[in-house]
């Protein structure tokens, strides 16, 4: 395992470790507490998503996309169906688009809540984690109400969604948002403004904008570095161009631009933007049949497509090659967490072990998506 120089020590963080967010192994070279090099070893959760996809039909890929990013399955579904619909040139009914946006944004809130809560846990604060999970639970309840599953939904289909919104969903959703918005203030008071939390995160693990772009870091991590890039705004898909929302970027409020706090803070702001989007979508949602555009048989024309969407973790791209059969020729998933993890080594050099945990947490990786 490499040559250990002088006073350096190799420390294995993982594969079983409380805060690697899954089965990730980090081979850390340390000099005392100071980290001099990190070698991430991934692949412990490799489930052959891409190989699998080549052996099942297009609709059967969707359950597998669920299992890649298991914290934001709706968004994984969303990316896949958007790419497929673009490949097959399907126009979905308005209502389907609205439902998808609502579900996607709800899932974004849920995923961010977990990311923020677990981040607090990494830093050592236990209570915010449970508050956030408590509220995420209500989102999961709504998902269960709609599609029967709490985590792995298989809800969005090519050309539609599996079920229409259930009775009173709008009312329940508005009720949740009304309940949820004041909670954000509480999270902020409990965790965000907490001086210890700020000290632990501000100025730590700075990713400068050019490094972030070069590493393909995307989503809240990239916006935390001050780059205003959001696929929902810049390459609008579905009906995101109809909604009014801001793209929050980090501003280095407590420290340097692009530090852990900025990434955290961008997520917190994004939750509020998602709430805005959901409110608009719930107001405008038209009626109609959600199954009307479902193709009888999914048999896309020959060709290939690369389409990215904004998942809670960043640019989630699907590269789909079709050879005209009902079985995909190649499905490649460009996972945002994969790129985010790749910059861990460069970002965390010179920081302490505690900071490595903080940086890793701020990148909000999901190992299921990295290893696919």
């Amino acid at each position, binding site marked *: 395992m490499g040559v250990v120089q002088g006073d350096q020590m190799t420390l294995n963080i993982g594969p079983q470790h409380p*805060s690697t967010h899954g089965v990730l192994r980090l081979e850390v070279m340390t000099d005392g507490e100071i980290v001099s090099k990190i070698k991430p070893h991934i692949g412990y959760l490799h489930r052959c998503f891409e190989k699998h996809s080549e052996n099942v039909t297009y609709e059967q890929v969707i359950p597998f996309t669920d299992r890649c990013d298991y914290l934001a399955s709706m968004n994984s579904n969303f990316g896949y169906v958007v790419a497929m619909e673009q490949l097959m040139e399907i126009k979905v009914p308005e209502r389907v688009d609205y439902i998808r946006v609502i579900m996607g944004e709800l899932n974004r809130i849920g995923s961010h809540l977990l990311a923020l809560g677990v981040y607090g846990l*990494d830093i*050592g*604060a*236990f209570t915010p984690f449970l508050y956030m999970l408590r509220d995420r639970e209500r989102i999961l309840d709504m998902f269960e109400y709609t599609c029967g599953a709490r985590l792995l939904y298989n809800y969005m289909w090519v050309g539609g969604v599996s079920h229409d919104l259930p009775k009173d969903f709008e009312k329940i959703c508005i009720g949740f948002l009304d309940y949820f918005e004041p909670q954000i203030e509480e999270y902020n008071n*409990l965790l965000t403004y907490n001086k*210890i939390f700020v*000290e632990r995160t501000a100025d730590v693990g700075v990713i400068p904008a050019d490094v972030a772009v070069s590493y393909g870091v995307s989503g809240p991590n990239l916006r935390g570095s001050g780059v205003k890039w959001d696929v929902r705004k810049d390459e609008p898909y579905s009906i995101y161009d109809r909604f009014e929302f801001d793209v929050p970027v980090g501003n280095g409020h407590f420290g340097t631009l692009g530090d852990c706090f900025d990434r955290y803070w961008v997520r917190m702001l994004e939750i509020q933007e998602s709430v805005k989007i959901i409110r608009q979508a719930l107001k405008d949602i038209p009626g109609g049949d959600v199954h009307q555009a479902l193709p009888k048989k999914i048999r896309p024309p020959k060709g290939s497509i690369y389409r990215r969407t904004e998942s809670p973790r960043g640019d989630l791209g699907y590269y789909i090659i079709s050879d005209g059969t009902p079985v995909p020729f190649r499905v490649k998933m460009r996972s945002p967490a994969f790129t985010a993890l790749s910059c861990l080594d460069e970002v965390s050099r010179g920081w302490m*072990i*505690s900071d490595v945990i903080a940086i890793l947490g701020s990148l909000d990786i999901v190992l299921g998506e990295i290893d696919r």
Partner: protein
Amino acid sequence: MTVDMLIDWFATIGNFPALAFILAVVISGIPLFLIMALNAMIAVYVERKVSAFMMDRIGPMGQGPGLHAGKWGLLQTAADAVKLLVKEDTIPDSSDKFLFKMAPYIIFIGAFLGLAAVPFSSTLQVADFNVGVFYIIAVGSIGVIGIVMAGWASNNKWSLYGAMRSASQIISYEIPAGLSIIIPIMMAGTMNLQELIQFQSGSVWIVLPNWIIFNNPFSFIAFFIFFISAIAETNRTPFDIPEAESELVAGWMTEYSGFRWAVFFLSEYANMLVVSGLAVAGFLGGWQSPIPGLFDTGAWGLFWFMGKLIFLIFVMMWFRWTFPRLRVDQLMHVCWKVLIPIAMVNIFGVGIWKLIFG
């Protein structure tokens, strides 16, 4: 006092001083151990419930009398204790077995000895030293030897990190703790805990009891510095970096399991009791009633002392379930750049205060 009283009593029976001494120590040691065990059991239960309530949970609910159908999980800690006792005792192959086995005892001894000098009431105290404050501070540091031993003997990198962090942390935080506890000593002019508490009788500023914390602004600040340092010395959040479960898995306790781990646990809670006891005796008037002259006699002393103690322990729990954890260098920063300078200013301040008003 108990030990002295027992020795005196044995002296009335016959002349066997050596045996009398041993008997007295053993007889007074057993209740101490029971207090320790009972404290750990109750504190663990309370901690679980407090943490649960703060997190909108309800905590353990089974395991009461009649097990699963039971009430409020009252027997949860007893069940835990049984579980820990019957658990397999694992010792890593490559560990230093002698030190590995020794470490829990050393830590235990540190906590146990500290408890001996805690004045639970005006009469209930195992050993009434004339240097009680100094004694508690001194034996409180024994624990760190055990922690370093545990960390080293485990032959695990996480344990080693935890031990090193713990050593540096406890040694650093001894200083502000010591500097702050000097203030009651300065004001009362004694290191004897009972005399210190007696000094705090009566009232000050007309309405407030004459506790040292209320005596002057410097001692008010000194109490908080002492309390913060005390939390750091007991390795609790926000200063729990030696065990830091999200970073170091379990720090210096990583390789321990079963009963040895239970001993660590016991000692942690006993330590909380000791440092809180010192804080109560030094700053909060010990067994004095908050309303001077009222409910001040006999068993009430025990009641007030335990009440204050439990309140401080609750505050420690409250801290733990609210705050994130500091980083090593920030921990040192807080100690050396914030607490120690203020503690030193405090000493000057109290000195001047005493010169002018005292």
